């Protein structure tokens, strides 16, 4: 059954969209990730204009983050103070990101920048995760204590604030800086940014893992909400019909995914996720490098 999307202005198969939502939702349930980094390239792949894919995916992530954060909130696993610091940076970053997005679209370089961002970030994160999970699997026989964090340049930064839930006394500039970077990514790549923020919170800030996911989801809700509104106002590329279809499939898929996820070991999960991330990265890299079928492309049609 075909459905015509009012903003994307393309006709798509409704079951394909529901299935994609379900499939990505399942994987995000298994691995505990948002899935934006899979969904946005998939949407572009099936012919949704990249601008619409990025903006609409931001809207969908609002929904999946809300349902995720509620569970963490109940268990007290959200550090609101840290969340607000990240959020302050996130609002700045995502607002800049939407402006940059519109500017690049005008220049005709938006698609390239979206794809390059994917290759760079997915490549780095995928390789790091793969190395880490392989090491963990190898190390699991002979226990080695994790490396303790030492004092470094980060502890010399001003504006120190005590984050009680995270048991940290660090400069507020650190979470704000991370927030800015993640906000930029959210606006340009159509992702929540959890795949960058979660490692940064664990390894850079040294937050306890228990509060990391809840706090990052809390921040992602507001950053993606900010992106949604700014894109709706500036580029009119948010397709609510597409977003609702995706999240209907996503919600159901995620529930099944969570059930499968608890049966797998942590390092196996991370290894599998790393492979998946690298596969998406390889596919996008290939598209960038392979000689295009036509050396000429059409830009936006203006003038109405």
């Amino acid at each position, binding site marked *: *059954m*075909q*459905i*015509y999307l*009012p*903003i994307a*202005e*393309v*006709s798509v198969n409704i079951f394909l969209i529901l299935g994609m939502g379900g499939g990505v939702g399942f994987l995000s349930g298994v691995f505990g990730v948002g899935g934006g980094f899979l969904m946005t390239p998939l949407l572009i792949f099936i012919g949704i204009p990249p601008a619409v894919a990025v903006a609409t995916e931001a*809207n*969908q992530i*609002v*929904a*999946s*983050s*809300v*349902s*995720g954060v*509620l*569970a963490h909130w109940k268990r007290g696993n959200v550090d609101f103070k840290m969340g607000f610091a990240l959020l302050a940076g996130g609002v700045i970053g995502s607002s800049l990101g939407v402006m940059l997005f519109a500017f690049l679209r005008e220049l*005709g*370089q938006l698609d*390239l920048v979206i794809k*390059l961002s994917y290759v760079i970030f997915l490549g780095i994160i995928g390789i790091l995760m793969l190395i880490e999970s392989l090491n963990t699997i190898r190390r699991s026989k002979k226990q080695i204590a994790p490396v303790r964090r030492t004092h470094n340049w980060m502890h010399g930064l001003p504006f120190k604030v005590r984050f009680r839930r995270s048991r940290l006394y660090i400069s507020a500039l650190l979470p704000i800086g991370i927030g800015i970077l993640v906000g930029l990514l959210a606006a340009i790549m159509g992702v929540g940014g959890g795949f960058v923020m979660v490692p940064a919170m664990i390894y850079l800030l040294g937050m306890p893992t228990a509060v990391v996911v809840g706090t990052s989801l809390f921040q992602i*809700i507001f950053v993606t*909400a900010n992106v*949604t*509104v*700014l*894109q*709706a*106002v500036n580029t*009119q590329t*948010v397709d*609510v*019909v597409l*977003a*609702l279809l995706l*999240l*209907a499939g996503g*919600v159901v898929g995620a*529930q099944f995914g969570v059930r499968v996820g608890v049966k797998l070991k942590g390092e196996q999960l991370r290894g599998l996720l790393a492979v998946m991330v690298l596969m998406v990265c390889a596919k996008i890299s290939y598209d*960038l*490098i*392979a*000689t*295009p079928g*036509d*050396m*000429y*492309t*059409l*830009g*936006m*049609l*203006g*003038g*109405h």
Partner: protein
Amino acid sequence: MSNRLIVALVLCLSIVFGSQSRANDLVVDLSKTVVPITTSFTGSNLLLFGSFKNDNKTDIIVVVRGPFHDGIVRQKKRVLGVWANGDEVTFEDVPAYYYMASNRPVEEFLNDDLAKLRQIGIDSLDFSVKNADQLPEHIKANTGQFRAGLVRNKQADGLFGRKLGNVHFKGDTLFRTDLHFPANVPVGEYGVDVYAIRDNKIIGEHTTILAVQKFGLEAGIYDFAHRNALAYGLIAIILATAAGWLASVLFRKS
């Protein structure tokens, strides 16, 4: 239908063509003049039919074209091993959609001058280069390549096309052809031109205006997103938040 045909005949002849020749003989109508884009839109077929005295020397050409925009064409180039958009040319008056049908290959009965004059056939489309004097020399010398690239892309998207031999005569005077509008057809106003050609002269012509527009929910959402962008964005967030909350409530019980 025949009543409509007669009304159309009278209207068209009196308004559009009062010319001296045998233009009076050409009568055309469409099965509908609005292509509605609704939620279930997957493209649309229209029937164009008409009558013209067919003395085996006259040929019929049907051209559908519209809405006109500026079209940007970009040439890809390798930058550090990656294909990026490089030089660009903007063409004016590019029809978002162009389709031509005829009863036999137009090359057999239409000369290039007339084709160019009336922009009949994709090769005869006259796109002018916008701000041509400001383009660097190496682009200016190559605008033909850019034009060909535009046409290729449009053809690949199914938005430029032609079908020769798709206009069928029935008996001595009637002819018909099917017009197809694909799912990605742009919204806007289209002109449907029918030409009767004999001895390289247009001896009859007729224009119908056709509208492709969104209807119902499609139109409502689109208009709202453009007119009340802020409210639309806020509603999108509220919907997403409600859906996320609903999901967590529903699945906690099970």
